[in-house]
């Protein structure tokens, strides 16, 4: 085994080893209780193994940060703008002026053909409309994300 390692090491320092052979060297030098003659070489291989492991993780994190976040941001922007437009239209419909007789005095709104004059009831209807838009917003976001994955 040690002779094989010596031979592999010679080839390693000649730049002639494959990635698989280099993994064999890293496994060998990762062992505990190696004879002292191997200590400094082991330190080099342990460093290379540690550094490449961490680099893989860091690249993975950068990839994860770059792709889905940007797509979600774009989707969220589109859906939020659409939801805001829906909410505005809903509000304009609820509060549309001039509906009904001009002779009737005071503020009122029409909801499902009913004339409502109580501001508290009007506010409740408006809040329900916003909640509905928000729920639809979430559903659309999920569906768009699913489609783009």
């Amino acid at each position: 085994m040690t002779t094989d390692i010596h031979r592999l090491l010679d080839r390693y320092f000649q730049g002639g080893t494959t990635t698989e052979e280099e993994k064999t060297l890293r496994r060998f030098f990762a062992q505990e209780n190696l004879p002292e003659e191997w200590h400094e070489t082991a330190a080099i291989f342990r460093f290379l193994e540690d550094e490449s492991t961490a680099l893989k993780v860091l690249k993975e994190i950068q990839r994860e940060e770059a792709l889905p976040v940007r797509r979600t941001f774009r989707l969220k922007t589109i859906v939020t703008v659409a939801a805001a437009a829906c909410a505005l239209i809903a509000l304009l419909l609820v509060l549309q002026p001039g509906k009904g007789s001009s002779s009737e005095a005071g503020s009122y709104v029409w909801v499902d053909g009913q004339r409502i004059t109580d501001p508290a009831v009007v506010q409740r209807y408006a809040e329900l409309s916003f909640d509905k838009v928000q729920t639809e917003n979430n559903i659309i976001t999920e569906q768009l994300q699913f489609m783009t994955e």
Partner: protein
Amino acid sequence: MDITEYKRVVVALRPSMLAIARRITGNKEDAEDVVQEVCLKIWHRRIEFGEYRYENLEAYSTTMVKNLSIDKVRTRRPSSNETALLERESESQSPDILLEQKDDADALRHIIGLLPPLQQRILRLKDLEEYETAEIAGMTGIAVEAVRNNLSRARKQLRELYLLYYRHKKTEL
């Protein structure tokens, strides 16, 4: 700290580290380099950090990011005096500084930084990113044999300088 825990810690710390580094260095590429270096340091010292509370790790990484960002800005500052620039460069790249490195990982990273750019790139591609020699030849546009020669020189230099550091460290103990 295992690899899963390490990833969790890095994901949590990265945004604030990047913001600090970007504020000091003024550009995204340098900020990424600094943050990567700090993250690698955390991984190399994971046994020690495994016992740290998250808040302490956050404080350590913030300090490291600030220091390395300032170093980055200092080393790239243009100088009208060419001799002063050369002196500063040779100071920061001097093998003497190698002997002052606190641990093996810092020393080895410093040695890689001392290698000529082509050797450095080939060594990184082969030993850190695990590409095959033929792939590196394609990426660098040089012949396979030239890749092997450069890799060989880089590895031998790495061993030689590390041995210098290792023996120096042993005599200090």
